[in-house]
């Protein structure tokens, strides 16, 4: 029985979890840093506790601060969300030691699957195919470079503790290895506190397809089908969909089976994801285990849409000791779902993250449209955290209809005051290759010219700008309640 959950996260995922708690008659407690005092996730929970200053290392990544917050509010469970401490075995263990139920897999499972090297070994034993590669015994820069040479360029160097592309570099020759290996290690050390690297053969233009798995404490494991996540930038996903347009029924069935075998081998409990690289096409396509994410994924809404399930409700039920709410036979994949991640970033400046005020932010709505967001109009996007503003997830009967629905929704999603990737998302969804389902992980890079070029304003856009001049309040400023809600106000000391 879980009565009160501490949500150890911020932004859209903290709000999504607080909602699921409320629907399950469970109280939720939010945590916040000084930068997030007025953030929407604080208001979404029943209570909120300050955990420290703005930098995540002293707040959302501070295990003692979060355990203290859970204890002081008499929580009996902790939901970590994704990112931050969600895949930190020490945190899961600290929860267990404090008598708190960790909503996720046991600490030793996180530890084993969190080491990419150990996870690879386990998958090889379980008969799940893995990408050819090696771990150097000699972890010096020279040792890694030698391992890369033996695997054969081009290679991918990855952080053993990694995820989200941090500490990861594609290395195409010996010379660039000299600068890229130390850079990967620095990033790995900074992000995970562990600079251990390993080397894999680069699979050229692969698709990234993953399978949602779910296990309970009674030995049941199911999969909830595939998600196509090939459209990425900086090794981070931008658009995800289910079902994957790249899988034939035979390959989909084989991948689901391999994912369940992987989850069983890992003794997995709660929601998890087995990521695969897909090489080739048709029934002869090969898939390789890439890594396991031992947490709820950012893109879980696409699975919820096509499978008609609520993964967070299921996580809470399983964490309380209950059985899985569904058997494999009961699960079906229906229609088509697409998620677009709306980031505060400038695609035409190398996807540079953007921080600043959200002067205007209006979400689209309509049948089959779901928005998970952690921001509001008038709020500020902080430099301290991830630049994800919102996730737009659409569901429709077919892929064609889902693409049209997503495009329509994006064209009615004005976000002003900071640069976003909105136009890029629109161009991606309209691209003939994407419409035809021809995707791969280097798609954005290879089509940069047509996807990232800025367009000039039309005369209509210039006219709209002209009438918005703020020194004519009688015509340009309709009455609004309260200055804080007024998107027409001039922000002092800001601009470019």
């Amino acid at each position, binding site marked *: 029985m879980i009565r009160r959950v501490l949500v150890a996260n911020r932004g859209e995922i903290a709000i999504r979890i607080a909602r699921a708690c409320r629907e399950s008659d469970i109280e939720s407690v939010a945590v916040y840093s000084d930068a997030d005092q007025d953030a929407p996730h604080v208001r979404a929970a029943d209570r909120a506790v300050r955990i420290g200053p703005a930098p995540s290392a002293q707040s959302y990544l501070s295990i003692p601060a979060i355990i203290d917050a859970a204890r002081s509010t008499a929580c009996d469970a902790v939901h970590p969300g994704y990112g931050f401490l969600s895949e930190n075995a020490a945190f899961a263990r600290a929860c267990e030691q404090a008598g708190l139920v960790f909503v996720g897999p046991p600490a030793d499972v996180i530890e084993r699957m969190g080491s990419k090297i150990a996870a690879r070994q386990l998958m090889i034993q379980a008969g799940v195919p893995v990408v050819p590669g090696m771990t150097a015994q000699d972890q010096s820069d020279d040792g890694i470079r030698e391992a890369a040479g033996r695997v054969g360029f081009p290679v991918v160097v990855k952080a053993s503790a990694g995820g989200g592309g941090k500490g990861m570099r594609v290395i195409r020759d010996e010379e660039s290895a000299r600068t890229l290996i130390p*850079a990967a290690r620095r990033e790995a050390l900074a992000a995970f506190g562990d600079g251990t690297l390993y080397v894999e053969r680069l699979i050229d233009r692969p698709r990234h397809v993953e399978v949602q798995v779910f296990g309970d404490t009674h030995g049941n494991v199911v999969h909830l089908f595939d998600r196509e996540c090939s459209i990425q930038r900086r090794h981070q996903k931008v658009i995800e969909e289910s079902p994957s347009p790249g899988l034939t029924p035979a390959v989909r069935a084989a991948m689901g089976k391999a994912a369940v075998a992987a989850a069983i081998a890992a003794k997995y409990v709660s929601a998890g994801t087995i990521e695969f690289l897909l090489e080739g096409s048709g029934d002869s396509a090969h898939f390789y285990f890439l890594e396991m994410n031992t947490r709820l994924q950012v893109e879980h809404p696409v699975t919820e849409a096509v499978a008609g399930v609520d993964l967070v409700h299921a996580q809470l039920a399983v964490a309380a000791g209950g059985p899985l709410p569904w058997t494999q036979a009961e699960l079906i994949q229906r229609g088509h779902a697409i998620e677009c991640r709306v980031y505060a970033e400038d695609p035409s400046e190398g996807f*540079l993250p953007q921080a600043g005020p959200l002067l205007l932010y209006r979400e689209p709505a309509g049948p089959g449209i779901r928005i998970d967001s952690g921001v509001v109009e008038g709020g500020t996007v902080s430099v301290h955290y991830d630049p994800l503003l919102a996730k737009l997830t659409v569901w429709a009967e077919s892929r064609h209809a889902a693409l049209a629905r997503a495009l329509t929704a994006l064209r009615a999603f004005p976000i002003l005051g900071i640069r976003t990737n909105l136009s890029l998302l629109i161009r991606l969804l309209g691209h003939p290759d994407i419409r035809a389902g021809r995707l791969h992980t280097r798609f954005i890079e290879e089509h940069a010219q047509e996807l990232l070029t800025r367009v000039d304003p039309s*005369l*209509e856009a*210039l006219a*709209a700008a002209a009438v918005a001049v703020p020194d004519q309040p009688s*015509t340009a400023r309709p009455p609004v309640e309260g200055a804080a809600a007024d998107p027409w106000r001039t922000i002092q000391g800001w601009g470019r």
Partner: protein
Amino acid sequence: MPRTITLRDSRGEHRATIDDDGGVTVDGAEIATRIAGPGEVRVAEMGRAFVAVAGDVRWVFLNGDVFEIEVLPDGRRRRAAAADGSLTAPMPATVVRVEVSPGDAVRRGDTLVILEAMKMELPVRAASDGIVKTVNCQAGDLVQPGVALIHLE
């Protein structure tokens, strides 16, 4: 009384005349507009535009495209760009490493400083060959956009 203002976008300058009844003439073309709500402007035939004001910049959203359009106040020039040779942070960030010292010769494209923001490393590279004249930051510094980190000559 109709007003005339100058707008600037990536192409250059545009003259816009705004009538009292919401009609706008841009580069000689007449376009009917109507303020439809907070931040919302109806624009003839193109549907709904959304506009926000940040200093001299008007942010405009129209059918999925976003534009930053500058309004040039009379008698004022755009802010001067940073002087040649100085390299600035593109956003608030933390300095991870400084790769050069005063007196170093650098080539175009060399990484001079590594910044970190939003959990990502952002290299600051030399825009041209040169000699490092001054280094105005050190590892651990929180730097603001527009402030010179390194000066080359």
